């Protein structure tokens, strides 16, 4: 059987762009936004964090072993998480009198200057990020309309792609309870999203069962 080619080794900007679009930048925005504190969101937008994440992912793709789309997405979210933590640390340092930085004249490890080839602009153009942002807003609105006990479960299962077992452990619930809440939350989320998209929402068949 042929081995599936590793999309991270193609070196092609077009492949990278398609990969990022397949991962769903809009949903990444929702996750990133949820992980940022209000204070951090006041200083930097989720879109900025996403752009920085994608830039770093492009630079570090050689360190990522391709194990499928879901793993790749998790890797991206880990980069975003690290970035958010770094920003939060900087925020805290700044409040305590530190954090004002001189601009280094020497290029440090974070510099992208001299990278072989250009970063695929298509991954991070403002127009694309704007579209992703718009989609993310719709998804956030749909998510926010859920009852409080369902929001986290739908977000963790659908957006962060955590398993029911992990969610159950994190929230201190049984797996059955997580599955129960997820199905109901998904139905409401789905109906709400269709409404926001201006589509005629059909009653979810799930809502008929109890």
């Amino acid at each position, binding site marked *: 059987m042929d081995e599936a080619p590793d*999309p991270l080794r193609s070196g092609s900007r077009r492949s990278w762009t398609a990969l990022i679009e397949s991962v769903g930048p809009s949903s990444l925005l929702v996750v990133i936004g949820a992980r940022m504190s209000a*204070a951090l969101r006041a200083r930097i937008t989720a879109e900025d964090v996403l752009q920085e994440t994608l830039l770093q992912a492009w630079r570090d793709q050689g360190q990522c072993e391709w194990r499928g789309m879901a793993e790749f997405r998790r890797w991206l979210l880990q980069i975003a998480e690290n970035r958010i933590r770094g920003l939060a640390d900087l925020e805290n340092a700044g409040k*305590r009198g530190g954090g004002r930085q001189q601009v280094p*004249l020497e290029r440090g490890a974070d510099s992208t200057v001299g990278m*072989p080839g250009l970063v695929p602009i298509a991954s991070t153009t403002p127009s694309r990020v704007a579209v992703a942002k718009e989609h993310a807003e719709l998804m956030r609105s749909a998510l926010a309309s859920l009852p409080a006990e369902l929001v986290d479960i739908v977000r963790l*299962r*659908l957006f962060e792609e955590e398993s029911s077992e992990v969610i159950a452990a994190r929230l201190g619930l049984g797996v059955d309870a997580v599955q*129960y809440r997820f199905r109901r939350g998904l*139905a409401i989320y789905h109906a709400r999203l269709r409404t926001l998209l201006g589509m005629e929402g059909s009653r979810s068949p799930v809502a008929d069962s109890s």
Partner: protein
Amino acid sequence: MAHEPDAVFLDQVADRAIALWIAGEPMKAVDLVADRHHLRAQIEGIVDMVRDAAVRPGSRTPQVPGYAVLHEIGRGAMGTVYLARQETLRRIVALKVLPHAGLMDEHARRRFLAEARALAKLQHENVVAVHDVIDRDGICAYAMEWIEGRSLGDEIAGRTKPPALDVVVRLFLEIARALVAVHSADLLHRDVKPGNILIRRDGRAVLSDFGLVHDGDHDTLTLSGEFLGTPAYAAPEQLRGDHAAIGPWTDIHGLGVSMYQRIAGRLPFQGANVNEFLRRIELGECPRLRKFAPKLPRDLETIVMTAMHADPAHRYRSASALVEDLERLSTGHPILARAASSWSRCARWVSRRRGSVLSALVGGGLALLLAVPVVGGLLQRMRTPALVAAHLRSARLALLDPAIGEHMFAGVHLHLDSSNIALSGAIVTRALAEYDAALQLDPDRVDIRAERQTVDLARGLVGKDCSEGVLQALAGTDRRRLGLLAFLLGAADLCTRAWEEFDLLIDSPDPLVDAALGELFLARDIGTRAFPRLLNASEAFPEAGFLLVDLADAALRSQESPVIARHYLDKAKAVGGRDTFETHVLVEADLCAAAGEVQHARELYEYMFPRHVSPTIRLHYARFLDRQGDRERAVCVLGGLMHGYATVSMHEAEFTALTVAWWDGMDPPSQVAVLVRAMGEPEVPAYGVAGFKTVLIEASSRVHRESPRSQPPLSSSQLQRVPLHGLCITLELLALDPAVLRACPPLLQRLAAGVALGLDAVLAACRGRN
């Protein structure tokens, strides 16, 4: 699953469905039903719901019978391409799928299937093979061989040095042979371009993406006058939509343009705007290929230029003719195509510009330059000054390296102590080596020796006392030497003064001084003074692409016509060379902004902004945002400049004006909204709050003194009632600290007035949140 209640079973189905979707596995209701057939409708509903609510397009892989779709690898107007595994033969394929085939109009569907059928006819090692065509169950797709490798477009984009010409010729030949096969099957590709030329890992080239293929056996699918193709590579007859004039020679044009781009590293046809760009394609106006590749064999240039001739009658009429000439070139035989003679080129040029040529001839006459060969010692003696001059030029070019220019930015913007600046050892070593080479040829050149000594001295001064007095003492009365020392050590002000004084004393321009002063004036944002200096310098250093980029920059900043800036930027691209800080991208952004191409400009600024920590980029980007009316973002961007540097007096006035305009542009409710938005800060930086309160009280008192009818001054007790830590966050958003704020009274007054005006609203909002 154990026989639990139906409701629990459905919960498990939903969980299983989402797990399949995450894993990219097919999600079919029939597989999830198990023995609960009475729940089939609800299970199908769950599957639809999961698919509908999917948060990433990558998981919405089409279900193509006989194939396991792995992931998307490309998307175009004529379909989406996926990586897939053919289940019967267990091989990896590229699956091109027409999305929503059941909903597409018949025209698109027929075109798609025509493409598939046309490809299936071809069996050639340089044409991507089609294994299978699927047209059932609402799916239109075809499976192609999966090519491991890169596209020619990716190779061109990643080009770091000129390609090996034998590799280029071989690639050219392979695709030409592919076109022979395509045309022999009565097909036309119509979109030959680097993106559609794939290069396998073994180096073999393959022609792909037949999305626009025209099949002569079937009804014409293109509507007359409809342009199909990629403009940069399109032949004039394609751009005109003249389908009757399109033939195999049209594909040859696309291949010729692709090869030009591969060799030169740039497209042949470029223009300041769309009309000019299209005009150049129509007329075939492009620079000679040997301008970018001086060592290119003339025959190869002739082949490329013939292939992309604007007039189909002068192009290769068939791919076979092109193949023949390429084979002749490869085997050292004379080619059959003839280069356009100088006279014919001149005649074409004149016919296009009859009036202006005539006036030039009348005004200036013709000049002939004869090169007279000289032999023996006389030749040697004549060559030496040229060689010395070449080494001297190289030494000076090394000193003008943009990395040195960064010191100028530091000196101008940051007022950093020059002892902190590390003069690049590699640059100095390079320069000294060139000086030594020049002196070896002509040891009597005292001026070169002096210059070399100055550079060596500068290297030795790094990390030591480089105050103005020390440098002046070292340089004595030699203003040129003083300027050079100051230039290399980042003492921008001293450099400017010394060299401006020197400039007054000399009769003819000094290119090094002109280049350096031009850079300094550019760093100071004085385009009108930078432009003439850089113009002189670029003529003395024509190989310095970065000088041309700066010249384009200066042209824009000195309000020259964008056409002039575009001219220099294009020239810079043609010259090439290192542009470590991608200044050409910034200038391109400025040019696009000047030309009204807002979206393109925005994309370029956004590309630059996170990549390079540069005050210039922030400044340009902030100005662009301001012009677009996005003042809030402009304030944040420019505020980052103010926040990150020791002193930024040069731009403080601009920042103040921008921030005031932003604040003034908001009505009080919006101003309150800004403050309320900032109230989410849970922690209070005590020193910041106290400091800001003091400053606000002072400012409001001043406002009241100046305008007694204004709001009474704020009192400490009033301010204590308001969680003003949020206002401190607002200040941080503006990247100000109280010390700087004190220097901006107009802003401060407005903030104070705004706070006073909105105080009740802010309080009410805070109570509401609590």
